[in-house]
């Protein structure tokens, strides 16, 4: 066996999965063709709130190629309710969530009927021939209005208030009473921020194929969570979990948007069971935007107490979080994930977080890259700037005087978490240097003095986040319905090749490459000899899947533990083979040797010996495979300093990012290229929230941004060259020292951009601008006029055509 010369961990390897992805060689779910396969198309409600008084399918049923047309009535007895795994409080209100609406629709885009036909074309044609009678109900869109309970989304619940969840540092014994801090404060700042609704906008639309044969159901789905999906589908349908196999083949992105048990997955399964034939459903882009869950959508009222010298003392957070019409898998818990992060890297004495979840007639919200933590980071980083302005202090200085010092780690925060490690000073120093902070401040002063048309602003975001979801006991304390461990197996094959099985479910992140790098180093086998298997419940029988920047910190650790188990057994066998004491066996570069001798056995030889089992030590089982499951006892806490310089054209309101520096500390880096990729993509999404993206509805509750002509996802041409660097302060909560990087860029960047734009125009009398900071919004703020809303300027093109529901 060849020794690996230089360590794999730390190497900027190209991703081994990319060739098949970018050449189109892989098979996505929609590429699957099974004999006798039927196609499902979904009729969606064009109205946001109505009673269904009649559905006539007779015309549609008679159309060419149509096998059957099914309505909510057909499934009422068997569809159950889509699962919500996170009942955040004992008294949380949770309406039944049918996959197919039976007698009432609660958001525009909700599934109302299905056509099952011999082709996707015939299925789509027949949709137009289904007649549904709707009796309009009052539409509830605004959260504050919803809380008045004048009109109810779910009359049976008697209220639109879903739940209120509170963390109070005084009650938890983690800090003082925030009201006392506010009462005693020299400065109190109160602000309200709006986190607009966002659409995850993954590249591959959702797609499901279900095959039923011989009592066994195989479900292919473009999902992030094959294991959770299997469990939940079994729970909802009563199909034995052992008769369900879920496969997530290559999946084209998720960003939390595929962390879901969708109505369509359940419906495909029910239809396949009913018809005894394979069924496929693939959504269109517009369908995806209408019906897949959305993200964010909060109103944040923040009160910050401080002393005149800049020391922060108290933080009170009052949130309204829009659930939409139903509670999907983790809908109610997403804002709660932010509860522990509003205090961020700062040392507040008192803290209180209170979140009220509200029902509206919109598509449900749920996880979207960062899930709860971007919202928290935005609010606190905006507030630190507001405090700096109020006190006339330099915004970086005020952060520095309040953050946890390097020598204070481990540090237990006012929210009750223990940050294991961090070095905010080092990341900030590096960022300031890369950015050229002082020069830019000078340039800014010059433009202000000149009254330049194009003003310059500087925005800061010194963030942290919690990753590595999650210690199972913490999830239990938060009433989450599952654990947060992860599992890995290593199969040592007789030819010396290695199969790695992971319970994580990559959907674009590059786990195959990174997991191979880790195992190559650990076992001294060549990178190329390692195959990573994932996303199939038949090969990877258990796992908690991928989200929350957990895969490396939790799943990678399980992998290291499995490799160590392989090595431990191999060491025992090697000692037996070399006829020496186990204590004298050394392992390096894939070979065992006896200390002080030239006797050597390559790992491959030991593995073969274990496999043939001709001569094993007393009591040793044949084979050299190992499984390991890791349950972390703490989260990991990436942090960093992001600096953004923007130019604001005061005549048009156009914002341009002219420099962006991101110095992140994500702990030990296995593959710097992949980490850079995650940071770049994350930045793009965070910047998009600040400047471009927003899901908007008209007053009837129709989504008015249901195409990419209206929902503005930026591309490379819209973004600056990112200057990225890292500091490395390893996590102490896992042996890799990794913290997670999947969400850092998204979490950090939004406030950096918004702070920067406000910094550019604050001297012109502007105090705040809502996101996304469109040119019209910026210009209107500069005129001192009220916010014009998002939809006033049609994007033109397709945007001039109303994208009503994606169907006529």
């Amino acid at each position, binding site marked *: 066996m060849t020794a690996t010369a230089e360590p794999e961990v730390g190497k900027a390897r190209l991703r081994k999965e990319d060739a098949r992805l970018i050449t189109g060689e892989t098979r996505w779910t929609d590429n699957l063709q099974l004999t006798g396969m039927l196609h499902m198309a979904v009729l969606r409600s064009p109205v946001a709130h109505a009673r269904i008084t009649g559905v006539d399918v007779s015309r549609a049923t008679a159309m060419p190629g149509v096998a059957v047309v099914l309505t909510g009535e057909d499934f009422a007895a068997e569809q159950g309710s889509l699962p919500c795994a996170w009942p955040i409080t004992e008294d949380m209100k949770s309406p039944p969530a049918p996959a197919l609406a039976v007698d009432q629709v609660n958001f525009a885009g909700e599934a109302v009927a299905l056509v099952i036909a011999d082709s*996707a*074309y015939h299925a*789509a*044609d027949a949709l*137009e021939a289904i007649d549904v009678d709707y009796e309009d109900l009052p539409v509830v869109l605004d959260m504050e209005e919803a809380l008045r309970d004048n009109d109810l989304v779910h009359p049976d619940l008697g209220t639109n208030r879903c739940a209120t969840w509170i963390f109070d540092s005084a009650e938890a014994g983690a800090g003082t009473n925030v009201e006392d801090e506010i009462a005693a404060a020299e400065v109190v700042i109160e602000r309200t921020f709006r986190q607009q609704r966002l659409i995850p906008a993954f590249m591959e639309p959702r797609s499901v194929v279900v095959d039923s044969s011989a009592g066994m159901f195989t479900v292919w789905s473009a999902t992030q969570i094959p294991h959770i999906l299997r469990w939940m589908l079994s729970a909802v349908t009563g199909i034995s979990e052992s008769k369900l196999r879920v496969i997530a083949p290559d999946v084209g992105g998720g960003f939390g948007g595929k962390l879901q048990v969708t109505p369509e997955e359940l419906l495909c399964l029910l239809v396949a069971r009913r018809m005894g034939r394979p069924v496929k459903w693939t959504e*269109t882009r*517009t369908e995806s935007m209408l019906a897949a869950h959305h993200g964010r959508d909060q109103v944040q009222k923040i009160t910050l107490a401080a002393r005149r010298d800049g020391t922060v003392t108290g933080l009170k957070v009052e949130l309204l979080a829009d659930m939409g019409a139903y509670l999907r898998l983790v809908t109610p818990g997403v804002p709660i994930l932010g509860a522990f992060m509003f205090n961020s890297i700062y040392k507040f004495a008192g803290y209180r977080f209170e979140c009220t979840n509200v029902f509206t007639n919109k598509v449900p919200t749920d996880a979207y890259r960062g899930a709860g933590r971007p919202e928290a980071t935005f609010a606190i980083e905006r507030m630190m700037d507001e405090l700096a302005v109020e006190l006339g202090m330099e915004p970086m200085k005020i952060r520095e005087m309040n953050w946890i010092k390097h020598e204070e780690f481990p540090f237990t925060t006012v929210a009750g978490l223990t940050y294991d490690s961090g070095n905010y000073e080092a990341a900030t120093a590096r960022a300031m240097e890369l950015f050229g902070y002082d020069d830019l401040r000078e340039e800014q002063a010059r433009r202000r003095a000149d009254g330049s048309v194009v003003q310059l602003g500087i925005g800061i975001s010194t963030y942290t986040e919690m990753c590595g979801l999650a210690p199972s006991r913490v999830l239990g304390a938060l009433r989450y319905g599952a654990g947060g461990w992860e599992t890995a197996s290593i199969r040592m094959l007789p030819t010396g090749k290695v199969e790695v099985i992971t319970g994580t479910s990559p959907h674009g992140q590059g786990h195959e490459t990174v997991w191979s790098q880790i195992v190559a180093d650990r076992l001294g086998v060549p990178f190329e000899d390692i195959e990573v298997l994932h996303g199939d419940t038949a090969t990877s029988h258990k796992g908690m899947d991928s989200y929350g920047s957990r895969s490396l910190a939790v799943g990678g650790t399980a992998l290291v533990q499995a490799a160590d188990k392989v090595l431990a057994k191999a060491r025992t066998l090697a000692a037996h083979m070399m006829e020496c004491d186990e204590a004298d066996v050394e392992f390096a570069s894939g070979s065992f040797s006896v200390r002080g001798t030239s006797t050597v056995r390559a790992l491959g030889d030991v593995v073969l010996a274990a496999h043939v089992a001709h001569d094993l030590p007393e009591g040793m089982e044949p084979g050299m495979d190992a499984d390991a499951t890791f349950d972390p006892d703490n989260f990991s806490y990436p942090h960093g300093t992001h600096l953004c310089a923007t130019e604001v054209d005061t*005549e*048009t*309101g*156009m914002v341009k990012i002219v420099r962006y520096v991101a110095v992140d500390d994500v702990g030990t880096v296995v593959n710097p290229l992949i980490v850079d990729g995650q940071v770049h993509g994350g930045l793009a999404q965070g910047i998009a929230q600040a*400047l*471009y993206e927003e899901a908007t509805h008209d007053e009837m509750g129709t989504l008015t941004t249901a*195409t990419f*002509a209206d929902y*503005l*996802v*930026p*591309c490379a*041409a*819209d973004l600056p060259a990112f200057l990225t660097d890292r500091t490395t302060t390893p996590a102490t909560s896992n042996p890799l020292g990794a913290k997670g990087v999947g969400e850092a860029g998204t979490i950090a960047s939004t406030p950096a951009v918004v702070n920067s734009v406000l910094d550019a125009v604050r001297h012109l009398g502007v105090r705040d601008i809502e996101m996304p900071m*469109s*040119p*019209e919004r910026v*210009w*209107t703020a500069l005129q001192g006029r009220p916010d*014009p809303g998002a939809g*006033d*300027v*049609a*994007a*033109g*093109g*397709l*945007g*001039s*055509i109303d*994208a009503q529901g*994606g*169907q*006529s």
Partner: protein
Amino acid sequence: MIPAEFKYLFPSTVDEAVRMLAEEGEDAKVIAGGQSLVPVLRMRLAAPTALIDIGGLTELTGVRDDGDSLLIGAMTTHYEVQRDHLIHDHALLLKLVTDTVADPQIRHRGTFGGSLCHADPAGDLLAPALALDAVMIIAGPSGRREVSASEFFVDYFTTALAPDEILLDVRVPKYTGWGAHYEKLNRVAQAWSIVAVAAAVRVSDGVIAAARVGLTNVGSGPVRAVEVESALVGLPATAESISAAAGRASTGDGYKDNLARVLTGRALTAAVG
């Protein structure tokens, strides 16, 4: 894409295409580059019964010199417009506008004529066609006719083309030696203009001899800023004259009115050079 069913026809001459259009009736549609029509089909916003693909009519492709004017074939792609020497020399504004349209993939398929026929008020080529006094040469069952740009653009997504007519060529007078600029404000690279201004200016001896200004996406079709044009003529080509004239691009106080004025000023400044 899962559009409604349609019949697909591929004529090889203009006459054949015109005949097919007539035979297939009102619900037939011409398809050129498909970059606007295909999205409409995929969303089932329209369900034409037949598509007549004019991609095989090679005589509709390319740019010809016709004395005082250029003849631009309707099927000339954006990509070809960007690289054509005649357009560069005699109608620079069209090249500069086309440079800002969509992305390279779309510019390789989308056509000059298709953009004009689609008549999206946010489409970029309408305003320069109007400002440059382009004339549409149209074929129909009763022969050929010519329609000036000012009569061609009727309303949102509506032109003077009858359902059985095809745009063949666009005649554009030569603007040899004119300065030109397109000032476009859009939010992301491939979003349409919020407002954009197309300007062409002829300066002789430091004095503005003639000006053409067209506005994109300020109404139901392209708008020609005639007041700005006439205010400029005879003035010295200076910042002061431009800013005074640009102020006439609009009288309102809304965001788009503001953009019309600001972008007109910037377009003229750049066009004067």
